[in-house]
């Protein structure tokens, strides 16, 4: 008799629960009832559902907010390395660009199939000719460098000679002045 009374009470609470009329305290009563091990047939189907109402919703929303915080914290922790990574990429591009530019200044570099236009006529080069041409170009460049060095050398020599002459002129001037002074003293 006690039990059927209790079941009636639970059924009433259940109805009010689905109408949104129960208080938190009454809901606790329901959770407790539905988590007990021995449930009569008519209530058994609600056991898992009340588990959901009691803790499932909380777990689910916590799981959601956790994934959210993980997402934001990933960006936060990787913030610095992101900046470093981007600047590293930028720096390497700059380096490549500079190297590429300096390579482009690289001179005449004939290969098989290169050609020379001489007086409006196109001469293709065979591999041998290309090598010879490359050698010749190298020789010419070497010659130019030598010429330049020689020129610099003679220039240097001239400078030295001029300097010597200037020094000597200075000496003569000094001597002249000394003679003048001596004469005045006499």
């Amino acid at each position, binding site marked *: 008799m006690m039990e059927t009374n209790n079941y009636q009470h639970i059924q009433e609470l259940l109805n009010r629960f689905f109408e*949104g009329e129960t208080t938190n305290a009454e809901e606790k009563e329901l959770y407790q009832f539905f988590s007990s091990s021995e449930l009569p047939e008519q209530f058994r*189907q609600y056991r898992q559902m009340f*588990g959901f109402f009691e803790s*499932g919703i909380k777990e689910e*929303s916590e799981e959601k907010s956790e994934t959210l915080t993980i997402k934001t914290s990933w960006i936060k922790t990787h913030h610095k390395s992101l900046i470093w990574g981007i600047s590293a990429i930028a720096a390497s591009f700059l380096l490549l660009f500079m190297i590429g530019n300096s390579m482009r200044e690289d001179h005449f570099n004939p290969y098989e199939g290169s050609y020379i236009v001489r007086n409006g006529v196109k001469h293709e080069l065979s591999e041998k000719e290309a090598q010879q041409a490359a050698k010749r170009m190298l020789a010419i460049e070497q010659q130019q460098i030598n010429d330049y060095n020689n020129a610099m050398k003679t220039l240097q020599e001239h400078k030295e000679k001029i300097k010597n002459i200037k020094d000597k002129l200075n000496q003569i001037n000094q001597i002249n002045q000394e003679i003048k002074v001596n004469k005045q003293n006499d």
Partner: protein
Amino acid sequence: MDQEQFKKEVVPLRNKLEIYARHLLNNPQDVEDVVQEVFLKMWFIRNQLDKYNDVGALAMQINKNLCINHLRTPHLFGDEAVEDSIEKIDDKEDPYVKLEHKDAANQVIHLMDRLPELQQKILKMKHVEGFEVEEIAELTGGNVEAVRVNLSRARKKIRELYLKFYK
């Protein structure tokens, strides 16, 4: 922003929000639902509200967006959404689908996603934050009955989903 501040600064915006929503939505029940959802959304971000210069403008913006959502996809707010998803679950011919459903039933985790946003929020208020219906009504500036109706709908939908799953 704490509860008292929320009641002082956010809840009084209700009148404005209602008037605006009434311009866009014909159904008074829809107006009530939208406004309730605005307040619940604001409540769940109450910690960040201090960062906004004008909380009223934020509320109006949320209100406007929700109204537009309502007009664009009314089915996402009513009862049809759940019925749709139940039908999809109920398709039991494919054994893989069946297995999937068993998994879904085991992981109750996606149940909440099957409810409209407003009902999710109300369930959270009641079952996670532990508010009584009267307190929720206070925070949304509405009457108890309006909150109770949505809570009832949410619970009935959960019941519906469970009975489908566990049969």
